[in-house]
């Protein structure tokens, strides 16, 4: 008997059961994938660097006779427990060609190494250690291959000095130390045959070779201080700083994490709603069973068995689907990183089991009515529309212009708002996350962030070769070089001037402790443009500003004095202000324009900046961009927003995550709309039949149902749009803060936030609600006679 009732239950309410099953499947899928991602992301960059053998402190040497520059320090420094040392040959963009001889795009310095001799761990696209290479083959950083639309199997021509080799690409490489968006170096791992061709060349060995050293130590400060005494040190940072280089990738990872948590919350909200709703539909049957004397325990057991069955089937399906979904969610982050949970798919299984337990718990709670209600109560609750006890707030007789369908829709939502809360919560949550991501992505490619990278100009010209050429020259040379650029600009009929931000790496002493610190100094840039978050802008040559992050590391605050060794002179400088910068992960100091800098000590340059004197419009700037690109040597010419986006690097990834989230949101919206509309139709069958009997056309009934969803989705979209700005500030600002920018002005595009994305969701809802409402056509006016 029990199983006969159960069988009938499953058969009779096929559509509703199917939808509950679908939601259980989705919930297990999202929970499984979400949990796995949360654990993988929480392991984060620290675990990845450990796997890559990066150690506690990293030193890279470069320049003439760099090989052996660290030998003495490595042999004598007592704080060093162990170290790994690799030799590399450095190159630039010009060192690389495609197999057909065409040029290739690459940022920053290129590194060539012998795979077999390397002491570091690298990973291929499947997170496995690359297999041994055959002569003439290589592995290349995956970012580089993506950027140049190359794939394994293609041929690469690598040259330096008189040596050129052709290599077949065997696979993509994940490089823990140098592969982050901020480092942006390209590493080529080759066979010892080819590598030795470079290394045996005297010119290459002395001018273009260097070493990469990863040190294991318990005293990073001691190693840091010992490093200040070594020559040819181009990069020296503790592991924490290297980990911070992945901050951009981690932003995406954290957004995936937030997305996963959001999907988990959403799944449980929808599950709770759908279970409560479907069980409320069973009240009448519950009443009848009670009336004929079936015990409460047995009735509850019947429903628990039914939902347990659905939960098990749905969770098993969801478990299998969660594995590829988790990979898709993480794929955008793991192009550069190895992010994985050591527990593997066990986490997905735990997620699925959690969903089963939650469903059993929710069903148990929802069937409390069995215990509480008398048979009559239960039967009445099932038939009298218990949610409609509130007084109508609107009156058709007073609504002069509203059509009957519109009035019914508005009146329904106003009279029983509780009924629509689950839809509002689900839609608002989904949309809120999409809008937060849209705000973040738009900000990352807007001019708003330029003050965190330097000073504002109309155009930014990047040329590695030009920058390399000017480095190490005198100030007189620089003046002439930039005058010449300005003259050429004038010849082209463009009123403006060139400028550039330079970085120096100086020994800075505070409280008796020496550190090598990157100091920023603008050449012909507008110092007044810089944004200082607190304190007073440096006014004299011996005044500096520092970032909050550097202040924390150095222990120096506003009002403290640091001693900077400028090379030509040592100067005691007072810290007068804090400022924010993403450069060098926020570990920078800003010098006064009159500070005694000497370009020959320059460590790096930013892009050449072009500022026009006639305040041109965006359209004119775009036209001038073309002229500049055609007349000056460059790797790229970008406007301010494009320059910010290329500095940040992760904008394309953010965009793909944004579209993925939008896709998931649309999917959730479609499913929630179908579930709720099917439930509404089942609940309102008598009213639909009545309207038909009164002479309402099916079109009008569909319109009533569709408008109801329209009202609810528009309300949810307004709510999400209104919350999106404060929520972006609340959730995303801490992530920017990790990179050194505590004060962010978000680029809010009203058209996208208030129209485009909400519009997509509202239109999707309306279309799905309309298609689902077509099933009301099968309800006949004569069904008024058959309604229970």
């Amino acid at each position, binding site marked *: 008997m029990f199983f006969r009732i159960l069988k009938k239950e499953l058969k009779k309410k096929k559509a509703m059961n199917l939808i509950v099953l679908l939601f259980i499947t989705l919930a297990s899928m999202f929970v499984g994938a979400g949990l796995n991602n949360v654990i993988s992301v929480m392991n984060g960059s620290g675990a990845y660097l450990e796997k890559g053998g990066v150690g506690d402190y990293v030193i890279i040497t470069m320049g003439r006779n760099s090989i052996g520059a660290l030998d003495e320090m490595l042999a004598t420094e007592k704080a060093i427990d162990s170290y790994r040392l690799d030799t590399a040959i450095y190159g630039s963009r010009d060192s690389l060609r495609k197999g057909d001889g065409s040029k290739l795009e690459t940022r920053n310095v290129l590194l060539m190494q012998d795979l077999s001799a390397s002491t570091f761990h690298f990973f291929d696209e499947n997170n496995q250690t690359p297999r041994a290479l055959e002569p003439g083959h290589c592995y290349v950083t995956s970012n580089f291959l993506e950027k140049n639309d190359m794939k394994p199997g293609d041929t690469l021509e690598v040259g330096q000095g008189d040596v050129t080799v052709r290599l077949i690409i065997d696979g993509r490489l994940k490089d823990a130390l140098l592969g982050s968006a901020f480092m942006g170096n390209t590493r080529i791992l080759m066979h010892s045959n080819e590598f030795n061709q470079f290394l045996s060349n005297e010119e290459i060995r002395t001018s273009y070779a260097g070493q990469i050293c990863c040190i294991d130590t318990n005293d990073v400060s001691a190693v840091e201080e010992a490093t200040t005494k070594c020559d040819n040190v181009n990069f020296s940072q503790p592991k924490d700083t290297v980990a911070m280089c992945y901050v951009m990738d981690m932003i995406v990872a954290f957004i995936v994490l937030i997305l996963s948590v959001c999907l988990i919350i959403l799944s449980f909200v929808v599950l709770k709603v759908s279970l409560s709703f479907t069980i409320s539909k069973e009240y009448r049957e519950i009443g009848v069973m009670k009336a004929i004397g079936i015990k409460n325990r047995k009735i509850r057991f019947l429903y628990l068995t039914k939902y347990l069955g659905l939960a098990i089937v749905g969770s098993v399906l969801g478990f299998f689907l969660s594995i590829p979904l988790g990979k898709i969610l993480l794929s955008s982050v793991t192009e550069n990183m190895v992010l994985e949970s050591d527990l593997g798919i066990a986490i997905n299984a735990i997620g699925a089991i959690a969903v089963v337990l939650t469903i059993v718990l929710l069903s148990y709670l929802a069937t409390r009515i069995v215990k509480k209600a008398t048979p009559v109560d239960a039967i009445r609750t099932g038939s009298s529309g218990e949610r409609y006890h509130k007084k109508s707030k609107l009156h058709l007789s007073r609504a002069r212009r509203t059509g*009957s369908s519109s009035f019914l829709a508005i*009146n329904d939502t106003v009279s029983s708002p509780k009924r629509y809360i689950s839809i509002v919560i689900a839609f608002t949550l989904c949309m809120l996350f999409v809008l937060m991501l849209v705000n973040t992505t738009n900000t990352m490619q807007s001019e708003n962030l330029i003050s965190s990278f330097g000073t504002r100009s109309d155009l930014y010209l990047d040329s590695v070769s030009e920058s390399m050429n000017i480095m190490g020259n005198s100030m007189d040379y620089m003046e002439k070089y930039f005058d010449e650029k300005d003259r050429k600009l004038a010849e082209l009929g463009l009123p403006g001037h060139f400028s550039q931000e330079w970085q120096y790496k100086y020994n800075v002493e505070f409280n008796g402790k020496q550190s090598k610190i990157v100091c920023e100094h603008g050449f012909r840039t507008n110092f007044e443009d810089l944004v200082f978050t607190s304190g007073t802008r440096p006014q004299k040559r011996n005044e500096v500003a520092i970032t909050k992050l550097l202040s924390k590391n150095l222990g120096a605050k506003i009002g403290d004095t640091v001693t900077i060794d400028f090379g030509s002179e040592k100067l005691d400088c007072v810290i007068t202000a804090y400022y924010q910068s993403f450069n060098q992960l926020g570990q920078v100091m800003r010098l006064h324009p009159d500070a005694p800098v000497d370009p020959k000590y320059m460590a790096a340059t930013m892009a050449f900046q072009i500022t026009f004197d006639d305040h041109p419009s965006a359209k004119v700037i775009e036209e001038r961009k073309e002229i500049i690109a055609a007349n000056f040597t460059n790797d790229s010419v970008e406007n301010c927003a494009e320059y910010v986006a290329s500095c940040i690097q992760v904008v394309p990834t953010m965009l793909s995550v944004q579209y993925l989230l939008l896709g998931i949101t649309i999917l959730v919206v479609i499913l929630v709309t179908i579930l709720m509309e099917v439930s509404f139709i089942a609940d309102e069958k008598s009213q639909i039949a009545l309207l038909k009997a009164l*002479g309402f056309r099916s079109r009008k009934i569909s319109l009533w149902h569709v408008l109801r969803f329209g009202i609810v989705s528009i309300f949810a979209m307004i709510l999400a749009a209104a919350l999106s700005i404060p929520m972006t500030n609340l959730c995303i600002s801490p992530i920017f803060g990790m990179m050194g920018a505590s004060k962010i002005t978000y680029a809010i595009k009203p058209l996208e936030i208030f129209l485009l994305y909400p519009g997509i969701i509202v239109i999707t809802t309306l279309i799905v609600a309309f298609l689902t409402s077509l099933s009301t056509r099968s309800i006949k006016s004569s069904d008024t006679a058959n309604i229970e």
Partner: protein
Amino acid sequence: MKKVMEVKDLCKTYVIEKRQNNVLKNVSFDIEEGEMIGIMGPSGSGKSTLLYSISGMDKATSGEVILDGKNITELSEKELASVRLNDMGFIFQQMYMMKNLTIMDNILLPAIECDKNAESRKDKVTRCEDLMRKLGIIEIADNDINEVSGGQLQRACIARSMVNNPKILFADEPTGALNRQSSAEVISEIEKLNAEGTTVLMVTHDAKVASRCSRVLYISDGNIKSEYRMPEGLSERDRERALNNWLMDLGW
């Protein structure tokens, strides 16, 4: 008398699990303007099916139902909806109402939807109020449907069925869910409407209710077995007695 509706050879067959069930078998009869017809018969005889089939709420398997020269069995869903809205009124045994609307709004709803008189909404509201006043329910106009008695609710249903001045009013056991007093009130309202010229076709089990009709059709096993025309000039008690005698002859 002018014929409002002609029913010719109407058949209705349901197929349940491959078993054919002929509910209506070649039913034919005419309805004249101003008539109040009662349909009686045992449970399962096809009374409600006949009502729903001739009102176009259910599709007949074969046969014709002519209303104003149009065979409504051949009309599309859209055309049928228009006929139900403009030319027919319905009263159900269960007092179905739109749950979120007040009594007034429930009555007004089909009037808003109807555009045959090209009235303004204000005029429609006034007409609804007049109708409610006539049926003695104006004081519950702004009440919700769960705040009124069964009798009041059924009178509201009558008002709703009459709001578009239908040519014919169909009633399916209109007093079936009411107590004796409410039942008498409701049937008296229907009688008044009939006296004002509305044609009524009513399914009922109650001989007392049926005795108020001018003609009673007795249906059994899907066919009209007999027809009784109520003699004029009889008192209420005599009408009831006469009908009971006729029914007893039919084995009721």
